[in-house]
């Protein structure tokens, strides 16, 4: 029959020992030793020898022994003996029979191992979960670091993830993309193409790669290379698709641009030659072939010296190669020879092309046939020389003509007692177009004023003719102004129909009543300034002189009084313009100017008129001859 200790230990896993006040153990049941995997130890055995877990708990143990505390426990102590055990260690206050405490060891191996199994599983799951979170974070970070758009979708076609680049490419956020299908993230016009491609991949498995245009929901068009692969699901079937996009939109655009550039080069009206660094021809365009007669096949692999004409020196070519070899552009004209031997000039620009390392990898020559241009230039130079010579001759003629005209212009005014005569003449050009002649004629005054067209040598010659005729006619009909102009007109129209003039011929007699009689051939009207202050234009107009023969000219008469002043002038005065381009004009403008200048002597008044005119013109340059002739009737005949 088993005793209490055997029943407790075998049935309940409870072992005990008594503790003396000096902490010595009284182990009456050897089952405790067996449980702890120990042999029975000889001699006195102390509490801490068997249960070193109690070291450090001296105060707790002392409290239980003294009875100030009834019990003390260390739960779930793990030891490895010949097997792994878990036990709870109890110490109870136990005073009977001179004892101090009852030590109880309660086996908890079964619960401990069970608890460890549960805890182990839970910890492993937590660790696994942390690892998964860490891995997902790593993969997410990795994906976001990849510049190419990447997505993954389930086998139903719904996006389950993507990187930042894909979200940016689609112009949606990651949250907006996840859960959607391709029909909801790209335009419907192309979404079915992509879903069909996905279905093909899910059926066949493996990898799919293709190039396709894609239009986003925002209308943005791109060109993309798709690389897709199917990944397996948990059931072993298709799990979904992972796709990587390479956006080649810019590359496509570049290819198109290069293609356009290639076409432009090929169709260029200039001949284009590309060589390697040694000068070996690698490319010629159609224009080169058309111009030189060499075919593409004949030119490729050759050196451009196949075009050498022998015109240029060796130094010329050495300079060219030295320039482009140093990485600079060379520009110049070269005389080359075609395949058929014909020579032609080219304007050539040769530029080096560098690689990323700065090394010359090609030379490009753009050449323009300037043979015709050179010929035209030669003609132009020749013509220019002739023109220059002709111009020099003309200048010499003009100088002669100027001297002639200078000689023809009257410098001294006739002296007539009955009147004062003043003249201011400012020729605009080397050869002035205005002419005047004032003569004393039997006590009276004959005055001829004209403005001829042109300022060249011809005008000078014409002026000589006018001078001759005007002098001749004074003797013949100096008293009859109308007839004077009619005769002058008849002579000029007969001999020189291409030249014409405006003219006034006047005769002033100084009898009892001084009388001005004049005829006007298209000339600005004389101005009469009365001594009483009145100022007005005199007479009327007549036809231009020399345009057509058989013209009649009316004679006008104006009675004058002492102090009255009569002015003849040419159109340079009324047509003087200010800086705004407005003319003085023949209406009130000219008369007002004369009115303002009326002062002092005849000469002072005329100088004042020119001052007024200069002031009106301002900094605008003089544009025509300026002629003003003044006659003042004297109050008392001088010298009479």
């Amino acid at each position: 029959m088993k005793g209490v200790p055997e029943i407790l230990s075998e049935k309940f896993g409870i072992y005990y020992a008594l503790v003396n006040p000096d902490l010595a153990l009284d182990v009456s049941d050897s089952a405790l030793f067996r449980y702890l995997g120990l042999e029975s130890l000889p001699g006195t055995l102390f509490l801490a020898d068997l249960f070193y877990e109690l070291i450090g708990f001296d105060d707790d143990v002392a409290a239980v022994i003294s009875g100030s505390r009834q019990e003390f426990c260390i739960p779930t102590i793990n030891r490895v003996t010949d097997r792994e055990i878990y036990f709870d260690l109890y110490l109870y206050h136990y005073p009977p029979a001179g004892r101090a405490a009852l030590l109880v060891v309660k086996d908890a191996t079964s619960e401990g191992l069970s608890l460890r199994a549960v805890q182990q599983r839970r910890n492993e799951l937590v660790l696994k979960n942390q690892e998964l979170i860490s891995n997902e974070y790593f993969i997410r970070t990795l994906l976001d670091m990849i510049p190419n758009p990447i997505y993954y979708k389930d086998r139903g076609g719904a996006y389950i993830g993507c990187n930042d680049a894909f979200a940016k490419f689609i112009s949606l956020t990651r949250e907006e993309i996840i859960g959607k299908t391709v029909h909801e993230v790209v335009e419907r016009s192309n979404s079915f193409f992509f879903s069909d491609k996905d279905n093909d991949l899910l059926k066949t498995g493996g990898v799919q790669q293709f190039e396709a245009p894609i239009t986003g929901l925002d209308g943005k068009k791109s060109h993309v290379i798709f690389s897709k692969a199917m990944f397996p699901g948990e059931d072993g079937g298709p799990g979904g698709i992972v796709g990587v996009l390479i956006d080649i939109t810019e590359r496509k655009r570049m290819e198109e641009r290069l293609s356009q550039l290639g076409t432009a080069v090929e169709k260029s009206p200039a001949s284009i030659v590309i060589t390697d660094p040694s000068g070996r021809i690698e490319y010629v365009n159609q224009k080169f072939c058309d111009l030189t007669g060499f075919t593409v096949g004949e030119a490729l692999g050759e050196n451009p010296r196949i075009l050498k004409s022998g015109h240029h020196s060796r130094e010329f070519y050495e300079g060219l190669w030295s320039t482009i070899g140093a990485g600079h552009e060379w520009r110049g004209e070269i005389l080359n020879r075609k395949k058929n031997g014909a020579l032609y000039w080219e304007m050539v620009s040769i530029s080096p092309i560098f690689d990323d390392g700065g090394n010359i990898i090609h030379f490009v020559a753009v050449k323009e046939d300037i043979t015709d241009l050179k010929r035209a230039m030669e003609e132009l130079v020749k013509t220019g020389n002739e023109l220059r010579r002709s111009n020099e001759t003309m200048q010499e003629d003009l100088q002669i003509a100027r001297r002639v005209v200078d000689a023809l212009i009257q410098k001294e005014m006739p002296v007539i007692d009955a009147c004062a005569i003043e003249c201011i003449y400012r020729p605009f050009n080397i050869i002035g177009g205005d002419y005047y002649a004032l003569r004393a004629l039997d006590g009276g005054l004959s005055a001829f004023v004209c403005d001829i067209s042109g300022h060249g040598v011809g005008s000078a010659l014409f002026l000589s003719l006018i001078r001759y005729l005007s002098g001749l006619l004074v003797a013949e009909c100096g008293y009859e102004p109308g007839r004077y102009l009619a005769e002058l007109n008849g002579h000029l129209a007969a001999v020189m129909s291409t030249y014409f003039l405006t003219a006034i011929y006047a005769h002033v007699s100084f009898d009892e009543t001084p009388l001005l009689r004049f005829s006007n051939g298209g000339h600005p009207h004389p101005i009469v300034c009365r001594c009483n202050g009145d100022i007005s234009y005199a007479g009327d107009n007549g036809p231009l002189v020399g345009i057509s023969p058989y013209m009649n000219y009316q004679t006008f008469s104006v009675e004058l009084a002492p102090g009255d002043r009569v002015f003849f002038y040419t159109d340079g005065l009324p047509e003087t313009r200010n800086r705004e381009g407005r003319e003085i004009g023949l209406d009130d403008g000219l008369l007002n100017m004369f009115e303002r200048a009326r002062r002092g002597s005849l000469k002072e008044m005329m100088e004042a008129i020119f001052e007024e005119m200069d002031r009106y013109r301002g900094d605008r340059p003089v544009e025509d001859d300026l002629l003003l002739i003044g006659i003042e009737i004297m109050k008392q005949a001088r010298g009479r």
Partner: protein
Amino acid sequence: MEYKWKITILGDFAVGKTSLVQRFVYNTFSDSYLTTIGVKVSRKEVKLGGTDTAMLLLWDIAGTDLFTQVSHDYLRGASGAIIVGDISRKDTLASLEKHLALFREINPGSGYVIAVNKTDLIGADAGTEAARRHLPATGALSTAEVFATSALDGRNVESMFTALAKKIEGRGGSEK
């Protein structure tokens, strides 16, 4: 003089507390993970200066997580502590402060060191400075002595336990 000092090994679960004790006591390492339940007390004698020795009673206490806490009874009477974190798990390093605070609350004045374990994962030459860079630079941790340990290759394990023993001795560790 022969001392007997209780030293608690604290830290989150699976940071390598048991492995550090195994490396120190038995100079062995097992890469299979076995969760500790309750407490497992191991013993090892270390030599101090002269003829002095100390029997270290190493209390390898079950690691904690959000749902389990260390029994305060396990910590009572400890002369020193090793607070262990896993360099590859930031959350275990963040918990060091909490474990240290608990230990210091129950055993004010006791010595302690910090073990940043599994440093073999970040390189063969990972040293103390590298380990310290992984720790929060605040509170008691900022002044604690830190050891970059690896139970796998044994680096700094022996020196850490010895350093802790000397620290306890320096604090006047009582003879037991």
